[in-house]
């Protein structure tokens, strides 16, 4: 299948071809690929694509199981409304 037809990040609709282009540009971590392509910036915050990108980096030998780092999870973990901010519970 054509890399332009394979979706890696469902939320932002980022294809395998875009991820591979970022890798060619020197982005060899999940975080830098996210910044270069937006893969992982959508509603699910990388829950699906992080694993796929991890596999791509490992299979290309750009990372090993010892060096691969996950993208840092950040507040609010699951999307929350602005109105819900600052509520004590």
């Amino acid at each position, binding site marked *: 299948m054509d890399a332009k037809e394979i979706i890696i990040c469902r939320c932002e609709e980022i294809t395998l071809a875009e991820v591979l282009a970022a890798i060619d540009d*020197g982005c060899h971590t999940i*975080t830098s690929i996210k910044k270069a392509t937006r893969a992982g910036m959508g509603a699910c*915050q990388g829950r699906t694509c992080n694993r796929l990108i991890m596999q791509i980096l490992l299979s290309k030998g750009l990372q090993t199981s010892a060096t691969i780092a996950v993208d840092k999870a950040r507040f609010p973990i699951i999307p929350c409304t*602005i*109105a819900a*901010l600052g509520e004590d519970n």
Partner: protein
Amino acid sequence: MKKNYQAIVIGGGYFGCSSAYNLAKASISTLLLEKNEITSGASGANFGCVQVQDASPGLSLELTLAGFAKMKTMEKELNRDIGFNLQGSLIAAEYEHHLPELQQLYQTMRGSGLNIQWLEGERLYQMEPNLKNGSIRAATYFEQGRIYPFHYMYAQIARGKEYGLDVAENTAVAELLMENGKCTGVILVDGNAIRAEQIVITAGAWTRELCKKAGLDVPVYSVKAEAFVTEAIEPFLRNYYSSAGFFAEAHSQESAAMSLCIGQSHYGNLLIGETSKPENMVSADLADNTSMEHCRRVKQKVAEFFPALENIKILRSWVTASPYTDTCLPVFGKSAIPGLIVAAGFKSCAVISPMVGEIIADLVARDSCKYDLSEFIGQSKLL
């Protein structure tokens, strides 16, 4: 990575990427060192606003206008999409006490020949229909621009590499290498030394610490800045909105307070920031901790100015050390230490960065540039 270069640039943000790219383009052998990853500091936390109307009068404004003109041609120069487009900017006097400062900005900019507009009443809400009616006193308006920060910085790195630029990420500098009163290179955390004829420090909030060890006081400080990004929604904001209190209130060690900035990204997400509070440095272990005050204040400010957003969902947050100087003027130019060039503490960064890179390349290649930077670099002093 070689052992010798003509130039070493320390810090991979707006100024480091632009300097490294311009140096490589000028056929100067250059190494860019970044302690984390390219764009991992304040530049990667930035909203990409190509802000013109809040520039300080004088050389800052001159370089800002030249930078704005240059930014319009950067996609062609870099042969990449950097997300540049024109976008309006509103600087809002949210409260009565913001009015004198905004009036002064308006008059100064008009006096400098910048055709910014003063909006109040009906015209204000025609310009920004989703701003809560009656919530602000007045605003200044100017059509400027925006970029997508990551694309802009990565594009310069990619183009720089085509010109032979070397980039080393996750490579921290322990200290500057000083020999006979000159800066002759860097010593990395792993103990290795790399030499260069000129060292360019574009390390934002970390500039001061790095220069201090070499005997130079660089008065660049930082505040903790926090931001949220929401889910993508249909076009909601026409302009980039920021509070007139931003520079007076947000960048102060004494009275730092929430000062709302909000813009809609190329992709429809709303970018909301930046609570700032006095903090000399955001330490590594606090670097991603969103504060409860930030959550409460954003909720309050959104209810006050953009209540329609209350039920929009936040996807993530970030925190950074945002550099500033007390004078709002950068520390920029050839320092009193031979071989050491500093570029840090700029007011609005994206817009001025193309000019800074160009000037750095001139300073390294020709030992001079066409601008008199003495007021900027004169803020740094030998210890």
